[in-house]
């Protein structure tokens, strides 16, 4: 009798020990991540330019890649994908850094020639033209529109935003616009500064900070947003963009 009781007890305890962890682990199984692509925060679509699906794709025909020089198309792809738009109207495919980079390359919006006046890199210009001058007709054809103003379009090396400019930017974000920013001295996560393009999501004039989706920052995290001080950031352009 005692043996039988002991056996039942052993079996019961064994079953509990086997199933208990999986029961408690179930709550975490809903966390699904596609690294390099996050779709949350009221459907804002984040793309990482380093993502292995497109990071190594050539971008400007001179050995540059989306990973090294594709923050422009990656930022534009974020805006298009946020509105579920395609870089090639009629293709039915939601934009990715790859499809936008192809369009930019075709249209000559990824600079390839060196010795251009004002070029940020003495080795030659590469990357993307500041998106503020990307053809309005193209933006319209893909379903986006840009505001007629450029909050910081005074040119290289860019302006540090005054409080009034910060408030102006905040008015746009509060009115449903995203801000496409070209910044000449973006603080690189590995130290130093780089020229960079990002999507500004929020502006805080009193704290003098902006919250951005940067295609080269927080790539391997579900929380892609990065808040940075604007006290020393030099904006080459800061253009409000939203869907038509």
């Amino acid at each position, binding site marked *: 009798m*005692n*043996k039988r009781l*002991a056996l039942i*007890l*052993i079996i019961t*305890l*064994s079953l*509990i*020990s086997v199933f*208990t*962890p999986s029961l*408690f682990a179930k709550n975490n199984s809903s*966390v*699904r991540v*596609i*690294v*390099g692509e996050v*779709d949350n925060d*009221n459907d804002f679509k984040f793309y990482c330019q*380093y993502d*292995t699906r497109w990071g190594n794709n050539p971008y400007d025909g001179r050995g*540059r890649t989306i*990973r*090294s*020089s*594709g*923050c*422009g198309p990656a930022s534009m792809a974020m805006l298009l994908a946020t509105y579920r738009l395609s870089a090639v109207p009629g293709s039915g495919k939601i934009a990715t850094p790859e499809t936008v980079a192809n369009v930019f390359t075709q249209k000559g919006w990824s600079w390839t020639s060196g010795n251009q*006046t004002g*070029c*940020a*890199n003495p080795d030659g*210009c*590469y*990357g993307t*033209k*500041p998106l*503020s*001058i990307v053809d309005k007709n193209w933006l319209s054809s893909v379903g986006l*529109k840009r505001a*007629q*103003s*450029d*909050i910081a*379009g*005074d*040119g*290289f090396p860019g302006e540090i935003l005054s409080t*009034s400019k910060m408030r*102006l930017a905040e008015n*746009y974000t509060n009115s449903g616009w995203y801000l496409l920013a*070209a*910044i*000449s001295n973006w603080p690189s996560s590995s130290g130093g500064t*780089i020229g*960079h393009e990002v999507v500004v999501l929020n502006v805080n004039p009193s704290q003098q900070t902006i919250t951005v989706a940067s295609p080269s920052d927080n790539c*391997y995290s*579900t929380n892609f947003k990065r808040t940075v001080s604007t006290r020393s950031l030099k904006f080459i*352009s800061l*253009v409000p963009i939203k869907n038509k």
Partner: protein
Amino acid sequence: MKNRAVLILIVTLVIITIILIALALFPSRNKESVNPNTPLPTPTTIEIVIPTPSDLNKEAISTVTYSTQAAKLNQKAFLLANLILLLPYQGNLFSLTYDFETDSFSLTLNSQSAIEAKEEFERFLNQNGIQNSLWLENIITSYK
């Protein structure tokens, strides 16, 4: 003797079970906790692309380039932003406002002196670097 062996076995199993339950209830602090208020990513497929060390080490090279030609193209939009900073503006014979949501201007001219009002408006624009009222897109003019 046998009973003692069974008892030890049972006690051992109970301890193991308690440890397992404790582990399940209090997961390791190294695991990233999931805040229930944090919006979760929504993709339906699970595709983990593990970055290679070279992915992590490489930094985006300067991706913004610039030319003086771009500066000129941006100048108009830059001046418009500076103008918007001054709005709403009330002149003697006109008023000008800007709607951020629709990206449109509203110009109200004094109907009794419409020509003078328009001139005053153009002067106001010129003083702020806007060479021509045609630079303002989406402008709704009314007379009052």
